[in-house]
Each structure stands twice: as structure tokens, then as C-alpha cells.
């Protein structure tokens, strides 16, 4: 595939790996967090850790939209989907996320709820237009990447006067989550989680630009390198972070210049500003209540806000006690530190959200890397 294979070139990867090994100082450790699930997936799928020296460690961050959705929000989605006659349109990733009492959207569907998996918010609009006699709710989740398409759907519904369409808005904000991690006691006071630098989001940054990360570099002294989702992007970003740390710099650098500018996508940002405003607080799985970390639909489009329309009341639900998703999402623990990882909790029967999406740290390690936990099997690749 032209323009893709070039970013997966094994020979270039070996050259970058050699440069990282050469420049990483043997006396120090480099703990780097890739914020995005897209990077987590790429690292696991292409076996990138096999190409890194032992003292360069990747920590998986919370940037997986499905993983950070708290149980209460899934419960609300199930409550909506169970209303007679209502159609819930959702991205397929949310289907298997565990909700209260062993439920999930997948199980609700099996019990007769009309839940349709869609690839875009435009599909949800189409379903609403095709079923004028039925209420259609779009279960909107995701970071800044999926927010503009939801804004477009709301504006389009307003223009079309689609009275049967509304949005259950769960859009969250990347910078708020990064700030929360940097402010967490484990990172800030106790120092139990060494966090030397960040690989910044790829697709999120195409929308918000590189500018929002400058605060983290300045205020917290952590370098950020924004990187694309291809494996060579990740390798190059790791090398850039190692160089910054070696030189004592903490700057925002942009490896993903082919798609990201400092200002981001003005048109997309304007659409989001038109339809959404900040929520005072939002619960994240793993991070708890995070102030000003999510969006809600503006008063002017209230008729398209499913929370208002159906009088949804948010009820926070505690995660399963044995599940370490919270600590894993904050980088405090690794998937293998969790007692239920790979035993009770598997992709077929996920206990925690990190085991659901292929971007989740647990699912990525289970699917792609768990043979490395077994010394007999973990023979290095040639």
C-alpha cells in the first residue's frame, strides 16, 4: 500500500532501533508514556518493544476512548437502548464493555434492544431519517477526534429538523487527562510512577494542534513528541524523546508534521465550539471525577441532548474490586500486575474495560504480547 508501507519499513526500523540503543545512556532509565490507545495498539501489533533497549520502557496511557468510559455511562446507554421503540446507534467498540450486573450492550441487544453498530455519526443520522416514527440516539464517545463528526451530526439534525434524533454525549478531552496523570500523587509526590516524557496523540492533535501540550512541557518539565500511528512514527518519536531527555530539554516537538500543525484544524474546532461546551466535571474510569474534562451539548441544541430529553440521571458505579484498570490507566500498574489478567478477565469475558478495545492496554498485551510473559516461549525474534 503506497503511503503506508513506507511507514512500516523493517530496514528503517532497524536503523532507528540502532540509533535509540546508541543514544540511550546505559546509566539511566527512560519511562515514556504513549497517551493514545492507537499508539498502544501499534506498539503491540508491530512488536516495537522488541526493538528497544531494556532501559527504554513504554507505559500505556489512558487514551483509549472505550477504556475510560465509566460503568455508569454504559448503564445509561443500556437504559436508553431498553426503551421500547428506541434505536441506539453506537460505535462497535462499546458493545462488549462490561456494565453493572454483568450486563453489556451486546447482552442488551441479545435481549431485544435495537442497537445498531455504525461506522460514523452520519450513519446514525441516516438511521434517524429512515425511521422517522422512532427515536434514534447516537451514543457519542471519544476524544477530540470523534467530537467534530458528532458536532456535524447535531448541526445537520438541526438543519433537517430531525425531531427523532438525539445524542448521548460522552466526549472527553485529552489535555485534561494528561494534566490529571501529571497531578496524580503517584507521579507528583510519591514518584512511584516514573514518567519522563509523553508520546503525544496523533489523530487528536490533527484537530487540537500541538499548542495545547506546550503547557505540560513548560509547567511539568516533561517533553512531548506528537507522533503518527504508524510504527516508524512511534520509533522516531521515541528517539526524539531520548534526545530531549539526554539534552535536558522539555519541549513540544512534532514528529507528525504531515498531519499536525501548531494550531490544529480551525474548521473542526469551530464546529465543536458551536455545538458543545465544557462540563463542570466528568467521571473517567481509572481517573475518577476530573474537572472540566468533558463536553456537553450547548443549551441552544438541547433538544438533541439525550440526557435532557430522556431525563437521564448519572449514577456512578464502582469497578469490580479485583480489576486494576484504574491503576493501569494511570500507568501505575502493568496488565500483568492484575490478578485477574488472563485468568478471569480475557477478551471473551472482560471484567475491566482495558480488556475490551484492541486499543486497551490489557487487550493489546493479551492478544499480542502475552507469550513474552513466559520465559520458555519468549525467544527473541531473529
Amino acid at each position: 500500500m503506497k503511503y503506508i508501507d513506507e511507514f512500516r519499513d523493517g530496514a528503517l526500523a532497524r536503523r532507528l532501533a540502532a540509533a535509540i540503543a546508541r543514544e540511550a545512556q546505559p546509566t539511566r532509565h527512560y519511562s515514556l508514556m504513549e497517551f493514545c490507545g492507537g499508539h498502544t495498539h501499534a506498539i503491540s501489533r508491530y512488536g516495537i518493544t522488541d526493538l528497544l533497549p531494556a532501559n527504554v520502557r513504554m507505559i500505556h496511557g489512558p487514551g483509549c476512548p472505550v477504556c475510560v468510559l465509566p460503568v455508569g455511562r454504559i448503564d445509561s446507554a443500556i437504559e436508553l437502548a431498553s426503551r421500547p421503540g428506541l434505536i441506539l446507534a453506537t460505535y462497535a467498540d462499546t458493545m462488549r464493555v462490561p456494565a453493572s450486573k454483568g450486563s453489556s450492550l451486546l447482552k442488551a441487544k441479545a435481549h431485544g434492544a435495537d442497537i445498531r453498530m455504525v461506522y460514523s455519526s452520519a450513519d446514525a443520522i441516516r438511521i434517524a431519517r429512515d425511521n422517522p416514527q422512532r427515536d434514534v440516539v447516537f451514543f457519542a464517545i471519544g476524544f477530540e477526534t470523534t467530537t467534530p463528526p458528532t458536532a456535524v451530526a447535531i448541526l445537520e439534525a438541526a438543519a433537517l429538523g430531525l425531531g427523532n434524533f438525539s445524542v448521548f454525549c460522552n466526549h472527553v478531552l485529552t489535555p485534561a487527562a494528561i494534566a490529571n496523570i501529571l497531578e496524580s500523587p503517584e507521579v507528583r509526590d510519591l514518584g512511584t510512577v516514573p514518567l519522563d516524557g509523553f508520546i503525544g496523540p496523533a489523530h487528536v492533535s490533527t484537530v487540537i494542534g500541538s499548542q495545547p501540550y506546550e503547557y505540560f512541557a513548560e509547567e511539568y518539565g516533561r517533553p512531548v513528541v506528537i507522533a503518527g500511528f504508524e510504527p516508524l512514527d512511534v520509533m522516531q518519536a521515541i528517539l526524539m524523546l531520548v534526545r530531549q531527555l539526554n539534552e535536558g530539554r522539555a519541549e513540544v516537538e512534532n514528529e507528525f508534521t504531515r498531519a499536525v500543525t501548531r494550531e490544529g484544524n480551525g474548521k473542526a474546532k469551530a464546529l465543536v465550539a458551536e455545538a458543545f461546551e465544557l462540563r463542570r466535571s466528568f467521571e473517567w474510569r481509572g481517573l475518577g471525577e476530573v474537572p472540566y474534562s468533558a463536553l456537553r451539548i450547548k443549551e441552544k441544541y438541547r433538544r438533541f441532548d439525550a440526557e435532557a430529553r430522556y431525563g437521564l440521571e448519572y449514577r456512578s458505579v464502582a469497578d469490580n474490586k479485583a480489576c486494576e484498570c484504574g491503576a493501569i490507566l494511570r500507568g501505575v500498574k502493568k496488565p500483568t500486575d492484575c490478578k485477574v489478567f488472563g485468568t478471569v478477565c480475557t477478551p471473551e469475558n472482560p471484567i475491566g474495560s482495558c480488556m475490551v478495545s484492541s486499543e486497551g492496554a490489557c487487550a493489546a498485551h493479551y492478544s499480542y504480547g502475552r507469550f513474552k510473559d513466559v520465559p520458555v516461549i519468549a525467544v527473541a525474534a531473529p
Partner: protein
Amino acid sequence: MTNVRSDYVRPVDFKHGHVDMTHGGGGRAMTQLIAELFLREFDNEWLRAQNDSACIAMPAGRMVIATDSHVVSPLFFPGGDIGSLSVHGTINDVAMSGAKPLYLAATFVLEEGFPLADLKRIVVSMAAASRAAGVPIVTGDTKVVEKGKGDGVFITTTGVGLVPDGVDIAGDKAQPGDAIIVSGSLGDHGVAIMSLRENLSFETTIESDTAALHNLVATMVAVVPCIHCLRDPTRGGLATTLNEIALQSGCGMVIRERDLPVKAQVSAACEFLGLDPLYVANEGKLVAMVPPAHAQRLLAAMRAHPLGRDAALIGEVREDPLHFVQLDTSFGGRRNVDWLTGEQLPRIC
């Protein structure tokens, strides 16, 4: 004097007619549908006998039997339809034991209201596939369910075959050191089906690879009778099939990403749909495990056959008490190739 013609029966209207409950009711309408469609198209001595079962002479040796239901949606897709698919699917299941498929049985579950024109198109395609493969459909059954209780047509086929002497192929026979060979490009069927799904529709020139593989298998076992395993990687793709065999044989496997045959259009479609071609269904491909000393000879024989032109040696079986299937990525790392989780695409075959 009467002008009623006692022997006249108005023919089934295959142009504008629809399936109704009487077509499965056991009465005249059902008998007529069987005579004018199934008997006429599948025509052979066993069907002509019009018994509830087919009486066949038992050849000496080991018989294999396989059955497969087909619920694919849409019913017609680039490169085939549910009719040809239902013939190929069962022939392949029989052939994967190294057997020569001999006979098929077919059961149709029809939904009330299904256009008879579509049914005829499917049956004609099925008959053509059966004739081309040289495997007759010798018995069958038709049932009709009420509108809304089915989805057009479901077809179950059952096949029997005979294993040649000296051939002993099974999923538990892979040995450490065996070479792993696939017969051609991966993921064609799944991508062809996906391109037609209403919420995905995209334009592609990819056609389903649906094909009967028994002649390819016959060529293979003639050249290398000591093949250990054969399987067709249908639902769940090659990844799932390799995991099944690793578990059954109690071994592990390592395959090489750079040696996997995948068409450019298929990898592009998978890229934008977020899929991995290793997990996408095939309907005309097989994977073989063979002792390494015979690998090159087998590969050459496969490549000389039209259905194995793009055959490739993709990896090796190895010892592994945990039965992991691993992949050396083109990028230079190694990762697990796990079982498929959940359902990638419902009703692919």
C-alpha cells in the same frame, strides 16, 4: 364432453412468484417446486428415484462426512452466491481430510415471500458448482418458515467422501518442524462480502475466492501423501485456523508477516476498516502442514495448479506447551496471533 385437461399443471412462476407456506407443506405445491426446480437442475439418478433417501453403494475404505450451514448475507456477492458457496464449503470440509468428495445432500430453509426468481438463480448456481466439481447432490429437503422468521434462504449441505489409502490427514497431526503453506491470497471472501454491507459499502474489484479445493487436494496428496494437516481457513481467517491446529496438535507456530500473500486491495480495505487480513474469511484457500523435507515439492505442485498459483511457505510449526501462534512482523518485532475475539463480521458464509 369436457375441456378440462386432466394432465395439465400450471408451471411454477419463476419470474414473478414468491415462496409461500404451501411450498413446504408437503402437498402438491411442494412436489411441484421440487420437480420443476431442484430435480430439474440437480438432475441425477438418485434424485430421479424420488425416494426420501439416496441409496448408494458403499466403497471400501475410510469414509468422511461433513456438514455445513450457509447463512451468508447478502445472498449474491462478487465471485459467487449462497448456492455455489454451499457446494464449495462442504466439499472443502470433506477434502481437508485428504478425501475425494463423492456425494452431497442439501437442505433449504426458505422464508415465506422469498422471490422464486432468486431461488432459481441460487439453485442453478448450486447445480453448476456441483457439476463442475463432479460431486452430485443426491438427496435433499425443503422447509418454509413464516415471513420474518428467516432471512430469504439458509442452505445446509452435507457431504461424504472417501479417503485414499495411505493418506492420514488430521488437525492433531502437526509436528514441530513442519512447514506451513497457504494456497493463496488471504481475506478475499471476507472483503468481497464486506464491500456490500449497507453500513460499509465501498467499491472494490475484489471477488470472493469461493472454490472447491478437492482437485487441488488430490494433486497435493498424490505428490506428498504424508501431508500432516489440511484445513480451509474460513470464518476467523488464517489466524483462527492456525490456533485451532496448534491446540489440537499440542504445538506452537511461528509465521512470517512478509511471506503472507495478501492482495493490495484487500490490505487497503482492511486498513481503513481497522481489520487484520489474518482474521478475514476465505472460501477457496487451504493451509497445509507438511514435513519440511517435502515442503518445496508440495509448494511446486500447488503452484502448478490454478487454485494454488499463489501458494506460499509462511512459517513453521514448533514446540510450545502453551500453543501460541506467533508472527515475526515485517517491522522486525514478534507478536502473538491470537484467537479471534467476538465476531468480526456476522454471516460471512
